C-alpha cells in the first residue's frame, strides 16, 4: 500500500523533465502538492483490493482482440503530410536532431 505524501518535489521535477515540460519553482511546489493528493486518492483503491484481485490495465475483461493480417488502404502521402507544420521530399520535416538514437 502506498503511504500518503509519497511523491516528492524532486520526483515531480524529474518526471516533468522526462516529459519535456518546464516548470518554475512555484509550479513545482503547486503541482507536487496536487499530484501527491491525486496519488493518495488513487492509493485508497489498494485498501479495497484484496490480494486475490489481480491488477487490471483495462476496464474490460477481454483478451486476444486481434485482426487478420490483411492490408487496408493507407492515407496518401499528401493526406499523411497535411497536418505536418513542414515537409520536404514527401517527408515530415523536423528540426535538427541533437543526438543519434
Amino acid at each position, binding site marked *: 500500500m502506498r503511504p500518503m505524501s509519497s511523491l516528492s518535489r524532486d520526483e515531480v521535477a524529474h518526471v516533468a523533465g522526462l516529459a519535456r515540460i518546464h516548470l518554475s519553482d512555484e509550479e513545482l511546489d503547486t503541482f507536487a502538492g496536487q499530484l501527491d493528493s491525486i496519488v493518495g486518492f488513487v492509493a485508497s483503491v489498494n485498501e479495497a483490493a484484496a490480494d486475490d484481485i489481480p491488477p487490471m490495465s483495462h476496464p474490460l475483461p477481454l*483478451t486476444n482482440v486481434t485482426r487478420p493480417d490483411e492490408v*487496408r488502404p493507407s*492515407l496518401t502521402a499528401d493526406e499523411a503530410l497535411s497536418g505536418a507544420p513542414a515537409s520536404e*521530399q514527401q517527408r515530415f520535416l523536423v528540426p535538427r536532431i541533437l543526438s543519434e538514437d
Partner: protein
Amino acid sequence: MDAVVDYDEAIATYDPVMGLEVHVELNTETKMFCGCATEFGAEPNTQTCPVCLGLPGALPVVNAKGVESAIRIGLALNCEIAEWCRFARKNYFYPDMPKNFQTSQYDEPIAFEGYLDVELEDGTPWRVEIERAHMEEDTGKSLHVGGATGRIHGADHSLLDYNRAGIPLIEIVTKPLVGAGERAPEIAKAYVGALRELMRALDVSDARMEQGSMRCDANVSLMPKGAEKFGTRTETKNVNSLRSVERAVRYEITRHAAVLNEGGSILQETRHWHEDTGVTTSGRPKSDADDYRYFPEPDLVPVAPSRELVEQLRATLPEPPAERRKRLQGEWGFSDLEMRDVYNAGAVETIEETIAAGASAAGARKWWTGEIARLANKAGEPFVEFAAQRHVTPKTIAELDGLVTSGRLNDSMARQTLEGVLAGEGTPTEVADARGLELVQDDGALEAAVTKVIEANPDVAQKVRDGKVQAAGALIGQVMKEMKGQADAAKARSIILEQLGQA
C-alpha cells in the same frame, strides 16, 4: 581515435561477457497495430494511417499473424510461451516515433527462458541461453539533411518517413554470455547467423541484415580473468552484417582492455559501428532519457494464447536447421569438413537448389564453394550476391555440371565456360558453343597423341613400363598439351598406361 590493445593480450587479461539483442522485422503483410502495408522500398509516407502516425483518437488492433509469428519464434528458441501478457508503452521523445512512445512489451514478454544451440566454424557446439523474445513495433526512418550527407552531426534538419513505423518487430535478448573467452566474437557471429537461418526456416522474416530487417545490438563488457562481477558494458548499435558482428565485438574487447589497462573506467554508453574503418565511436551516454516510464498499454487488451493454439503452432515448426543440415549432409555424402565449408560459406540452400535442378551433389559443392566462392572472395564480395549479380543461379550451375557429367567438357573447359558465364556471355551451353569448347571424342586422335608423346619421352615412358605408374602424370600433361586441352585427362591416362603395358 580510441586506443586499443592487441586482441590476444586483452583476452589473456580479461574475460569478456556479451549480451546480444537482435531485432527481427516480421514479414507480415500489414503492420503490428494497423492495416498499413509493409512493403520495403515504397515511396515515402505512402504506407501510413492515423494509427501508425499517432493521430489523436486512433486505436490500435493487434495483427493476429504477428502474435503467431512471435509464438513460433519463441517455440523455435525453446522458450516458454506466456499464458497471459500485455503490451506496454515505452515513452521517449524522438521523431522516429510520432506517438512519442513505442508499443513494446516490458516485464511480460510473450516468450522467455529458452536457448539456441549454435555451431562454431570448426564445428564446436555452443548453447546460447535466451532470456526473452518480445513483440514491439519498428520506428520510422530519418534522413538528415545539410552538413555531411546522411550524418546527424552538422545536419540542418531531419526528414521522416513513417512507412516503417509500426512494422512488427520481435526483439530477441540473450542472457549474458559468459565463459566464451577468446571465442566471444566468433560466438556472436555464429549466434546471429543461426538466428538468421532459423528466421528464414520459420518463414517469419527475410532476415536481411543489409536491408535492416534483422539488426543486432551487441553489449560487451570485460572483467578481470576469473572475476565474477561483470564490468561496465557498452552497447554497439545496429551492426548490419554477420562479419561486422564479429568485428565489432572484437574491437570493443580491445578498446575496453586498453581503457582498463590504463586504470580507467568504461563509460556506459551506446557506440556506433563504422564498417569502413572497423571502429566504434561514442554514441550517447546512459542518462535520464533511458527512463522510459513503461506502463501497460491501455488501448490494447492482454494477449492470452491458449495452450491449444501454442500446440497447433508448435506443430508448424520446421525441421531445426542444424538437424536439417545433418540430414542433407547424409543425403549428399559430404564429409564433416565439406559440409562445414558449405555452411560457413552460406551455401546450403544454394547447393540444395542446384541439386534439385539436376546437378550432382559433388559437382554442386565443387562449383559453388570451390570456384565461385573463390572468385567472390577475390572480388571481395559475399558469394551469394556475387553470383546473383552475374546471373549465376542454381540452374546455371546444374547446366554446367551436366556438361561435365555428360562428357562434353573436362574440368578446365568447364572452368573456362564458367568464366564466360560470369562475364555475361550467356548460358553454359551458349558459352561452350561460342568458345568451341568440346572434348575430342575421337579416340584415334588421342591414341595418336599418346604414341607421339611416348616416343618423345622415352625415359619417362620407361619408368612407367618399370612400374612407376605415378610418372605417367608428366605424360598426361604433354598429351593434354598436344590435344590443346580438349581431351579427357582420365581417358588419356588410361590409354598411356595401356600403351605402356600397365593397364
